């Protein structure tokens, strides 16, 4: 059999009209389809919240305006703490962790890809480290660090707050993920870039720092952002150590008021955190592209 392009002019010409089951999705009608599907979803949610037998209770327990407000401001007379203190804990935990994660992730990635004989033991260590840390559930790392380090009875290390142990655990865990992301980014830079840099007589380190890494990081900003959003949410896991971060605070709020609106507020908090971050990196990437690429 010979395979050929469509060279037979005697054949029937193809038909380009969408079959009936695709009609809704072609051309401008895509808009109709998306509107219809959105409306259906809204109706389904409304049904769930307003028509379900327990709908009214559910709305009161999770979405009560008064309790949401109370969770936000707190009330010293009733002995109810504002969730904002907890939020501050989450915020500084993820800010500090993210800086540390970026630094250690970079170092680990560097060790893993380096061919320098001096770094050989580090390369082995770094590989083992990523294997181990990506394998352990974060909650276990938290428990081991949070209860283990105080047991060591070392100066400074053993007398930190639970939030600090949380930061250490988050850093340990996420550095492994981020290292892999950065490593993939480094491999995504064309080899010609390395050759050009080395041909200029730049050392391996300078080539990495000035030529490869700046391009690698740009290439992996979206997956990096993914990991950072996960990290922000995982600050909630320090609650297993008893640190009063926002989720723990919401649970305390529930116990005091018999209302779960604190959990809703905590959920809103996490959503609000991630959105500016996403927009910020979108802007950053768009600006970088606009700067570098032709846009006539």
């Amino acid at each position: 059999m010979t395979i050929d392009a469509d060279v037979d002019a005697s054949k029937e010409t193809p038909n380009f009209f969408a079959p009936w089951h695709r009609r809704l999705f072609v051309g401008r009608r895509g808009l109709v389809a998306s509107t219809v599907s959105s409306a259906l979803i809204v109706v389904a949610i409304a049904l769930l919240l307003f028509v379900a037998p327990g709908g009214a209770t559910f709305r009161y327990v999770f979405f009560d305006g008064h309790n949401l407000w109370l969770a936000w401001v707190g009330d010293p007379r009733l002995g109810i703490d504002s969730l904002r203190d907890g939020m501050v804990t989450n915020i500084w935990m993820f800010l500090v962790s993210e800086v540390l994660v970026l630094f250690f992730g970079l170092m680990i990635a560097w060790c893993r890809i380096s061919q320098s004989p001096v770094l050989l033991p580090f390369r082995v260590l770094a590989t083992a480290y990523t294997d181990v840390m990506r394998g352990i559930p974060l909650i276990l790392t938290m428990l081991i660090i949070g209860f283990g380090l105080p047991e060591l009875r070392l100066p400074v290390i053993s007398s930190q707050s639970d939030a600090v142990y949380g930061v250490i655990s988050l850093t340990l865990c996420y550095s492994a993920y981020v290292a892999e992301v950065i490593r993939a980014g480094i491999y995504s830079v064309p080899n010609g870039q390395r050759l050009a840099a080395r041909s200029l007589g730049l050392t391996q380190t300078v080539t990495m720092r000035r030529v490869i890494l700046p391009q690698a990081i740009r290439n992996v900003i979206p997956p990096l952002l993914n990991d950072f959003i996960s990290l922000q949410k995982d600050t909630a896991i320090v609650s297993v150590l008893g640190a009063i971060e926002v989720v723990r605070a919401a649970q305390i709020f529930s116990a005091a008021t018999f209302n779960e609106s604190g959990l809703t507020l905590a959920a809103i908090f996490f959503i609000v955190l991630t959105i500016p971050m996403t927009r910020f990196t979108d802007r950053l990437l768009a600006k970088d592209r606009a700067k570098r690429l032709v846009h006539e």
Partner: protein
Amino acid sequence: MSDVVLAMDSVVKRFGDHEVLKGVSLQLHRHEVVCLIGASGSGKSTLLRCANLLEAIDEGHVSLFGQNLVDPRIDPDLVRRHIGMVFQSYNLFPHLDVLENVVLGPVRALKRDRAEVEEEAQALLERIGLRDRAHDYPERLSGGQQQRVAIVRSLAMRPALLLLDEVTSALDPTLVGEVLDLLVDLAHRGTTMLIATHEMNFARDVAHQVVYLDAGVLVEQGTPEQIFTNPQHDSTRSFLQRVR
């Protein structure tokens, strides 16, 4: 003192059990332009890379200014600072603007003063008519402009030897001329160059020596007249007929 810049002696290079260079010997004198011609896969790029130690050779010797580069005490980074290399695909750094591309080597490898280097870089860009594009990013330039910037980036290091690997092969035919003109200018200024090329007319015009490589063997070497008008070997003759 002899004026031999680069000397390769019976260089053998293998990738696995594929012998890509089969004992190539070649000498390059100061102010000399040598053009390397040969079919695709004959080992031209590999030869250039062996010359600036981007590839380690398996047998033979390479020396630069009489210093044996195979010696384990040699620091390849120091060697490369004196050898410029320009690639078929330009390989400009896309995250740096044109000026930064040119300045990076002298500032970061030679540790020279930035202000001074920038001034020189501007002068070099002026020479190729791209001074007003100094703060543009490479991807905004045409292929020909990018390749000329890449050449200037090598020049900013003031190399003793310039290696050029098919620097016009990726270019639109209308842009080839501007790059070749720059190379002709460099040749007239006495730049020592080893040029892998498929541009036979260019080789005929600027080369002092033409080297024909076939499957990793240096088949024939001579002046452009000898090689192009009176080749001694059948394989040279048939290659020249094919590219004509």
